[in-house]
Every structure is written in structure tokens, then in C-alpha cells.
């Protein structure tokens, strides 16, 4: 009897231990990873019931504010589908650690098949998923003649669509994802402090009673920044209080902060080029070679570091911060260059926020202009999905990126609409037209600021390891701007680190 009790106890313990040990393995759906076959909407209707709906796991990495804007759209999708007899249950998961955290989670889950049906990610993340054989090409969905399934790819903004056309493992071109949330960089400034200086210097013009700074150049920004420094040092002229002491550990404070080190490096390297061809080969090449150690990128960084040493601008890391917006909010900075999606973080009741385009090296006819276009795309993974969940996920992607929803998502978040029809829609143009009125939101201000930049948008070529290159460039910029490392030496160190990953690095300074 005693032995029997002991056996039961031990058996329970073993089961418990096994359950705990195996709990990290992801739950697979029926027929997970089955060969792709395009089903019909009727197939889907027949499969999902009210009690047993088709479950779509959707991973993203939005913070609380953006998630709150996305959730109602997803709920509307479920409701609308249910009305049509399609029972789809979307499980949204916000993965921590940003989009890099999401990519790591997916890479980690690839071995145990703990991956979602669909997710958002950057093109270089999709390269990883293609390498790992888990990304589902969306060509058949996009090109389907069934109106309820197919979409008009020509309606998507060209530069966004080009980004999602990627090479599969066998070299064939596939549609790896659908553009979802897109942003670019703009320049935010504290108009209460900056406008008087702009007027004094004659930069910009008055439009409808408001001073507007259009097409700024880096030289102009440097002059404005120098003036701001002088005014701060003589402690006068502002309605707001500059109440923070300059940091003596870092020797100085800066009126201008430029958020992303890697974007800063790539954008300025391109702006220092003289042609589109040169600009396409100044950072990485389309075939995955790293080439940023070159005369043009070096010249650009020499210009910026010289000004940084004069206290004109810097990256937020120089004062132990991640974003310039925090410094703007604390009245420790006047100007910040960052993503349009960060518009709400830059706004503050302490000052009037204005937005303009990212400065260019020059607006001369012969100059090359560049502003990064960034943001994630939606993709479907094949390994932990079957043909039913894939079609359900596709319908969700189609719904979220339709003209109406991409417009709504854009107006509430500051991301840019991904469809031309949305950009031209009355709802959106009315929203933007109102940007300068007292009722116009800061989001509209940010989006309007991108109007003049759209012609200069560029995207990074995505290849396996391109995200690693960006990481190393970010670190390199901290090394240059915070640790005063020689630019060429910092570039060489970054190359050495990248070679650990067998990424081909071409030294054009050698």
C-alpha cells in the first residue's frame, strides 16, 4: 500500500517535471507547416465556427499607445468577419524589447515552433525568417483573382512595395510581406525658442501668421544652434526657463540632438554623395556587402564631429539618454531629429512644437538629397500555421492595410499611410489641412513635415545580417561622438566585428 502511494507520488512528480520541462515548447496548430494551398473563403467559413473559431496569433512590438490604436481595428475585423460567417479569433501579443526583441523571440522559437501565425517586422528580419525557411511568400494571396482575397499592389506607395519584394532561398523573387506602419525622420523644434532666431536669421517665411522653416540645411541648423547656445549662455530672451546646469562631466550641453546613430550615419553619408548611384553604394550594397568605410562617409562624419566638438549638436547618448524628445521635454534641448512616430513624445505644453524636414547638405540642383524611410511590414509564418490560419491571417492583413484603416491608423499614430489612395483620400487631406489650426493635432504637423521629404526617401537593402550592420554602426557612432574615437579607427573596429559573422566588408579607404 505504502509502495503504491510512493509510486503514485513519484509518477505525479515525473509528470509534473516533464510538463514543466516541455512547457517551453510551443503549441502547434493542426497540420502546422503543411504545404501551401490557397483556400477559398467558403473553405474558411466551413472550418471556423462561433464556438471553435480559427485562431490567428499576431505578434507585434508596439508600445501601449500604439497598441491601443490597433486593438479597435482588430476587434472591428473580428466583428465584420463574423457578420460574414467567418469566425476568426485574433490573439494579439505585444512582444517586449522592440522589434529586435520580437525577431529574437521568433528566432529562438524557430527550433521549438513557438512562433506566431503572423507578425510585424523589418525587411532584414524577414531575411532571417527566409533563411530559416519559415516565411510564407504572399504572392498567391496578392495575385488571387478572388476579390475577397486579392489586393491591388499598385495602390501601395512604390518605395514601400519595393521593400517587401525580396529574394527567396532559391533566388526567386517573392512578396515577403505587406507594408504596414511606415515612418520617416523629421526635425522637431521648440518654436517658442527657435522661431525668434529663425526670423532674425531670415530662415523660412511667414505663412498664415506662423513662421515656417522649410528646406533647412545642416549649415543653417548649425548657425541656429550656435545662436541658441549664445542665448542660453547669456541667459536671456526666453519665456521659458532654462533651468538645468550644463553637465560638467560631459563638459557641455547641446541645443540639437539627433536620435538614431545609424540613421544619422547612413542618411548623411548619402547626402554627401553626388549621385543616386554613389548613394546606393555608400553604406551597404544590394548583394550584402558592407562598404561604409569610404571617403564620402568619412567626409560627412568629419563635418558633423567637428561641429559636435563645438557644442552644436550631438547624439542623445552623449548625455546618457536614448531620445532627444526627453531632453526637449525637460527644456534641456531645443531641436530633435527623430521618427515621425515619436511626435507625441516631442510635444509638450511647455512650448509650441513645430516640425520640418530633416536638414539636407544642400538643395542645389547637383546635390543628392536623402531621408530614411522606415517601418515594419506584416508577414505570415508557415511553420506554426495551416492553410486555414494562413488565409485568416491574410484577411486580417488585407483589412488592416485597406485605404480606410491605414488612414485611420496613420491619423491616430503619426505613422504614414501605406496606400496612395489613403494619402489622397479626402479624410486624410482634410486632416492634414487642419494641422496649423489650434485644433490641428501634432500628428498632422509631423505628417505634413514629411511632404517635402517624400521625393528623397531611401530604404536600406535588406539581407541576412543587415540588422547586425546597423547595430554595429550604432555602436560606432557612440564610440565616435561620446568616446572621441577616431572615425577611421571606429570604422575599422566595426568592420572587424562584422567579419565575425562572415559579412564581407570592403575597405575603400585602404
Amino acid at each position, binding site marked *: 500500500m505504502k*509502495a503504491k502511494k*510512493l*509510486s503514485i507520488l*513519484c*509518477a505525479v*512528480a*515525473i509528470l*509534473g*517535471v*516533464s510538463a514543466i*520541462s516541455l512547457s517551453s515548447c510551443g503549441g502547434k496548430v493542426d497540420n502546422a507547416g503543411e504545404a501551401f494551398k490557397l483556400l477559398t473563403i467558403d473553405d474558411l467559413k466551413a472550418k471556423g465556427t462561433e464556438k471553435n473559431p480559427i485562431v490567428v496569433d499576431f505578434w507585434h512590438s508596439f508600445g501601449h499607445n500604439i497598441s491601443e490604436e490597433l486593438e479597435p481595428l482588430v476587434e472591428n475585423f473580428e466583428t465584420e468577419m463574423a457578420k460574414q460567417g467567418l469566425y476568426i479569433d485574433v490573439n494579439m501579443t505585444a512582444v517586449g524589447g522592440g522589434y*529586435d526583441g520580437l*525577431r*529574437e523571440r521568433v*528566432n*529562438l522559437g*524557430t*527550433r521549438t515552433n513557438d512562433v506566431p501565425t503572423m507578425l510585424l517586422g523589418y525587411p532584414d528580419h524577414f*531575411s*532571417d525568417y527566409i*533563411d*530559416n525557411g519559415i516565411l510564407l511568400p504572399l504572392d498567391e494571396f496578392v495575385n488571387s483573382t478572388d476579390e475577397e482575397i486579392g489586393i491591388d499592389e499598385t495602390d501601395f506607395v512604390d518605395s514601400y512595395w519595393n521593400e517587401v519584394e525580396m529574394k527567396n532561398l532559391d533566388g526567386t523573387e517573392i512578396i515577403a510581406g505587406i507594408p504596414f506602419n511606415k515612418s520617416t525622420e523629421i526635425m522637431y523644434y521648440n518654436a517658442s525658442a527657435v522661431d525668434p532666431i529663425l526670423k532674425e536669421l531670415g530662415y523660412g517665411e511667414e505663412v498664415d501668421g506662423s513662421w515656417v522653416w522649410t528646406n533647412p540645411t545642416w549649415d543653417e541648423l548649425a548657425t541656429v544652434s550656435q545662436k541658441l547656445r549664445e542665448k542660453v549662455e547669456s541667459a536671456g530672451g526666453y519665456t521659458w526657463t532654462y533651468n538645468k*546646469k550644463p*553637465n*560638467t*562631466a*560631459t563638459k557641455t550641453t547641446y541645443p540639437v540632438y539627433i536620435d538614431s546613430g545609424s540613421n544619422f550615419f547612413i542618411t548623411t553619408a548619402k547626402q554627401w554623395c553626388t549621385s543616386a548611384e554613389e548613394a546606393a553604394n555608400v553604406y551597404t550594397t544590394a548583394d550584402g556587402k558592407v562598404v561604409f568605410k569610404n571617403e564620402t562617409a568619412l567626409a560627412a562624419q568629419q563635418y558633423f564631429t567637428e561641429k559636435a566638438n563645438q557644442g552644436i549638436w550631438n547624439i542623445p*547618448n*552623449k*548625455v*546618457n539618454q536614448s531620445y532627444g524628445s526627453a531632453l526637449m521635454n525637460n527644456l534641456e534641448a531645443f531641436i530633435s531629429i527623430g521618427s515621425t512616430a515619436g511626435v507625441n513624445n516631442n510635444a509638450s505644453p511647455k512650448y509650441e512644437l513645430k516640425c520640418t524636414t530633416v536638414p539636407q547638405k544642400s538643395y542645389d540642383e547637383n546635390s543628392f538629397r536623402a531621408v530614411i524611410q522606415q517601418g515594419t511590414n506584416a508577414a505570415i509564418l508557415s511553420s506554426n500555421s495551416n492553410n486555414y490560419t494562413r488565409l485568416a491571417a491574410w484577411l486580417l492583413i488585407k483589412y488592416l492595410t485597406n485605404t480606410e484603416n491605414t488612414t485611420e491608423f496613420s491619423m491616430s499614430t503619426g505613422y504614414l499611410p501605406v496606400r496612395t489612395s489613403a494619402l489622397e483620400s479626402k479624410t486624410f487631406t482634410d486632416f492634414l489641412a487642419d494641422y496649423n489650426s489650434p485644433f490641428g493635432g501634432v500628428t498632422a504637423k509631423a505628417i505634413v513635415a514629411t511632404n517635402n521629404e517624400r521625393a528623397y526617401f531611401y530604404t536600406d537593402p535588406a539581407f*541576412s*545580417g543587415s*540588422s*547586425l550592420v546597423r*547595430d554595429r554602426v550604432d*555602436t*560606432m557612432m*557612440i*564610440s565616435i561622438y*561620446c*568616446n*572621441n*574615437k577616431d572615425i577611421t579607427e*571606429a570604422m575599422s*573596429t*566595426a568592420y572587424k*566585428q562584422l567579419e*565575425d*559573422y*562572415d*559579412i564581407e566588408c570592403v575597405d575603400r579607404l585602404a
Partner: protein
Amino acid sequence: MVEEKVMTSEATVSSDKFAGAIALDGTKTIEVQEDKKEKLGFFARKKKEKKKEASQMLEWKKDWWKALLCLAPCLIILGIFTFYPIIKTFIVSFFPSYNYLRDTFGSFGFDSYVKVLTDDVFWRAMFNTVIMVVVSVPLSILIALLITVLLNSIKKLQGVYQVIFFLPYVTNGMAFGLVFSTIFSPMDYGLVNTIINALGGSSVAWTGTAEMIPYWAGIVVITIYAIWNGLAFKILVFLGGLQAIDKQYYQAAQVDATPKGRVFTKITVPLLSPMILYITITSLMGAFKSYSSVVALFGEDMGNAQDETFITAVGYIYKYFNQVTTSSRGATLLSQASAAALILFVFILIITFVQMWANKKKVHY
């Protein structure tokens, strides 16, 4: 003849074994007989032991499954989370192109070991680790020992002081990090910088990305962190050992009017030596495995950007291990991380053996 008998008997009496038998008549004959008896007894005992063993084996044969069942939960956990990873680490280290994401091995080779051993960053990591071990371990043990002795000699509020010194042991690491980031903030408002500025000096970039952190400053911060972090446990162990020492030794020293320093070196330290050895070995192992403290203080770059100035041996392992899921390009770096882990394992093993051998004569059990 009688004398001879007596002598023989005296010689034999000295042996406890035959004392009873000799007491009867004390003759050589008896001695031989006893020897025979003893031999017979030895065989009988052996036979008995064998029988016992056999019966035990029978019991084992009957109940082995119970034993196995009882051990199974432990064995499963150890198997999955300890033995399997160790074995896999060992195997993977010899397959330089092992791909973690695809679980493909490629060809056998020593390339990962060659890569690690010829990597400047690895030797910098080892150097930093050795510096941390050499500086922080003896200092922390010495400070812990002194605090323990002081705590033990305090009569009033002893419990309160013990709680104060033990608090860091139950404090969350994040809270620890926050406290240190305030104390050693590179900004003017950092506690240490405030004191330095008040004394007329200029602020030092102890942590953060803003400025190049001087090497000495980084090592000072890590050492203080390591000492503070490990102090509570060491005090706890020493206090337990100290309170177990027989008071008679101290009373005898008091009678002889022995100076306090001599009491400490001649009574306290020798009698605490098993604890000191235990703490030294565990502290050494802990210091060799330093990683989280460096990340908590300097971030994932473990020091100045690009340079990984304060990278440790375990930090080096993690640097490559973390890349395994960062990119499909990094998926093949597990072999290098495994090779570094095994090199560190051998290094710690050798140091521990040397230490145990060296301390053998100085430890009083």
C-alpha cells in the same frame, strides 16, 4: 623459560586484540591459536559481509524501480537542464559551423578553440576577470571577516546590525543597479561626483555612454559592487562559524592577557579556516563567472562602445551566445561560445584544485 613466557606475554599484552586471551595463560601456543581463530574469524566475517551484500543486492533487485522512481524527478531535471547542456556544449565546441537555428553540425574541427584563443577580446576578458578575482575576492573576504568579528563583539542591537548587513542578500538586483547608478552616476548629481566636486575635484565618468570611462574608474565601480553584493552571504557564513567556536579558547586567551590581534590571528582565523576556504572557493568561482554585475553597471556593451572595455570571461561567452538568436548570421557562433565556456571551465577547475591543495595544510577541521 618463565621469563621468556612473561616477556612474550608482555609483548602481546601491548596488543589490545589479544589482551583478554593472554590474560588467561600467556603462552605462545595460545597466540598461534588466536591467530588462526582470527584468520578464521576474518573469513567468516567476509562470508557474512558477502551474504549481507547479496541480500542487499536482492533487495536492490527487488526495489530498484522504487529508487529510480524516487530519483526520477531529480534526474529528469538534472538531465534536461544540466547534463544535456554540458554534453551538448562539449560536442558543439568541436563543430565550428554548428547552426543553432537549424541544429546542423557540419564538420568536426578545433577552429572554435583556435578562434577563441587567438582573439584579443578573449584575453582582455580573461585579464579583466583575473583583475576582478585578485582585487575583489581577498578584499571582500577580509572586510566580511572584520565586520563579522565586530558584529559578534557588539552586545547591544546585534540583531539589528545583522539585519542591516544581511539586507543586500535579499535585495533585488534591479534595486541594486539603481542604487549604484545613483551613487556612480557620471552626472554632477551622482553621489560620488557630488563629493568629488565639493572637495574641489572634477566629475568622473564612472558609468554610462556619455564619456570614455577610464579603466581605473570602471574597475573601482565593479570592485565596490562585487564587494557589496557578496558581503552579506560571507558575513552570514562567518557569523555562523564564529558563534560555533568554543568560548573556552577565548577565555584561556583572556586569562593569559593575549592581545586582541593575536587572538584574531591565532584563534579566530585558524578555527574559521574551513569556512574561509569554503568562502574563498565559492567567491573565486563567482568572481570568475562575473557577468551580470558588469552588464548592470555598463550595459550590454560591457564598457565603452565598440571596445567592450570591462568584458569578462562569461561576458565573452554571452556575447557570442546572444548572437545565436539575433540573426541567422549569428546562429553559427554557438560553437565559439561553447569553446570559450569549456576553456573557462578548465581554468576554474585548475584554480580550484590548486587552491584546495595549497590550503590543505592551513585548514583546521
